[in-house]
């Protein structure tokens, strides 16, 4: 009935197309060119930027960092989220706990990076302070070989609340009589959570995992600022950081070929897409279930 007035959506679509869709498509186009970025001189090189990806060791090592964050970080995030959701889902007053868990999701990632840099600080940081309280020796958490795991731990802390809240939101929609029925049948808390609750929120879990796939690839600000303003050590170069550095350069690494930067950008989109596909394959129900 309202189909005739679909043009009403045109202004929103127009802005979205001009400011988002068109630039993304242009980026994909640029990835087929060699472009120094300093002139309007673009040289068509076909897929040679993509061929270069396979010989660039930084791409492989950045990809590994993305996968570590996505898979290892994600596994830990969902372990804690499920554990916390299991622990509080029966409580009547969950809102304070949920708010305390969730609040890092609304704090600017730049601020969180500064906060965690403080926490990890060798001399004055809270973590080493607590360690020495228990007679431990201070640890240099942001040394080159530990800085990426240290960042992943912080990113886990930032995200657990978000996914706990999503899971709890899904659980709150399960009709109470189903839970009661399981209890009458003698199912204990773990059994009813694993056998009743989790299968019933399968769609919510799918959305949550898909969101994490996107978030893990999008994570940029935190890593960009974690090691201090001005420089990002290569240990933190995920695809996102590498792509930004290739696009806008640093003092040590000025831009040389924006086509190649956009080829790396396309890899990021492919990682999100493939991740989405896998999540769908693994988690999709065979049939829709209504309840």
């Amino acid at each position, binding site marked *: 009935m309202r189909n005739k007035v679909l043009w009403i959506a045109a202004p929103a679509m127009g802005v979205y197309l001009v400011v988002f869709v068109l630039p993304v498509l242009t980026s994909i186009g640029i990835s087929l060119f060699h472009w120094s970025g300093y002139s309007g001189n673009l040289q068509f090189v076909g897929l040679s930027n993509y061929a270069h990806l396979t010989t660039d060791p930084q791409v492989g090592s950045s990809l590994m960092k993305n996968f570590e964050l996505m898979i290892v970080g994600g596994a830990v995030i969902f372990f804690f989220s499920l554990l*916390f959701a299991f622990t509080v889902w029966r409580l009547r007053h969950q809102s304070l706990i949920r708010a305390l868990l969730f609040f890092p999701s609304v704090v600017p990632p730049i601020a969180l990076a500064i906060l965690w840099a403080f926490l990890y600080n060798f001399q004055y*940081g809270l973590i080493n302070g607590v360690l020495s309280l228990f007679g431990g020796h201070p640890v240099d958490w942001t040394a080159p070989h530990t800085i990426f795991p240290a960042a992943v731990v912080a990113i886990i802390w930032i995200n657990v609340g978000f996914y706990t809240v999503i899971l709890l939101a899904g659980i709150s929609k399960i009709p109470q009589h189903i839970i009661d029925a399981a209890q009458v049948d003698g199912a204990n808390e773990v059994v009813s959570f694993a056998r009743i609750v989790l299968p019933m929120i399968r769609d919510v879990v799918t959305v949550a995992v898909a969101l994490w796939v996107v978030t893990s690839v999008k994570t940029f600000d935190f890593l960009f600022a974690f090691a*201090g303003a001005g420089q990002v050590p290569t240990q933190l170069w995920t695809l996102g950081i590498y792509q930004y550095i290739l696009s806008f350069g640093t003092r040590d690494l000025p831009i040389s070929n924006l086509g190649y930067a956009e080829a790396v950008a396309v890899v990021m989109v492919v990682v999100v897409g493939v991740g989405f596909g896998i999540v769908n394959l693994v988690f999709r129900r065979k049939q829709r279930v209504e309840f």
Partner: protein
Amino acid sequence: MSMERVKGFVETPEQRKVSLKPDVVLNRGVQGLGWVVLVAWLVFTIVTILWLVASSLKSNQQFFGSPFKLPSPLVPSNYSQAWSVSNMGDYFMRSVGIDVLATAVAVALSIPAAYVLSRSTLNLSRWIVNGFAVGIGIPIQIALVPLYVALSWTNLVNSMMGLGLVYVGMTIPLTVFLLTGFLSTVPTELEEAARVDGASFMGTLFRIIVPTARSGIATAFIVGIVGLWNEFIVAYTVLTTQTKFTLPVGLYSLYGSLQYTSDWTGLMAAFIITTFPILIAFAILSRHIISGLTLGVER
């Protein structure tokens, strides 16, 4: 078990074995583990917040001398210093202005779009909604080089106008997606009655849809502002002079000057100035914020 004990039955070894069945042990174990980890997690979070607030009220000598003691005397001047000398007040006002304006424009454009998209039965409109949803999933940094070039062609680099334009475009996918989801749950009887009474499309939109969708619109607006308040990468790329910085970029630049000033406690005050408004908003509006940021999973 315990009931039997109350009734005076003596436990036989068989019954004792029943009580220690693996699933009972597992159940107790997981519940205990859950509480221990959750409490530890919350304690860590609270201690971190208190440490941060305490540090922001110390002089740097106090902080370096005893980083884990309470501040005495209190040094509230860290805040006034951060606000005026470190320009946080300037960044703050600019962030408020551009974020509110850009979100308002994005929501204003999204309401009619979401309305027709949620009511349309065409396949095309489903594709359009999916097209907006894709925009939520793609990292904005992929669009950044062409955006930067386009902004420099139009002389909009390092301008609030240019940044605001990008912010509107970045926010629209989220607000359209949220509002479409919200409006598709609003029953159509009222608007059909209005149409029978001869209301125009615009009349229906403003008199019926906007009032009934107030809470959805509020969610979209708040989530839009939260997103832009925290936005860094576009502002960092587009804004080149300090007099144009938004809060996150200003905080980052202050963080960069730390190596020259060593003013840690001042930075912590700046940190709190940056995060405080969003935490207050969160305390008051957590239902909207959570429902919006979880893309309506919680509604």
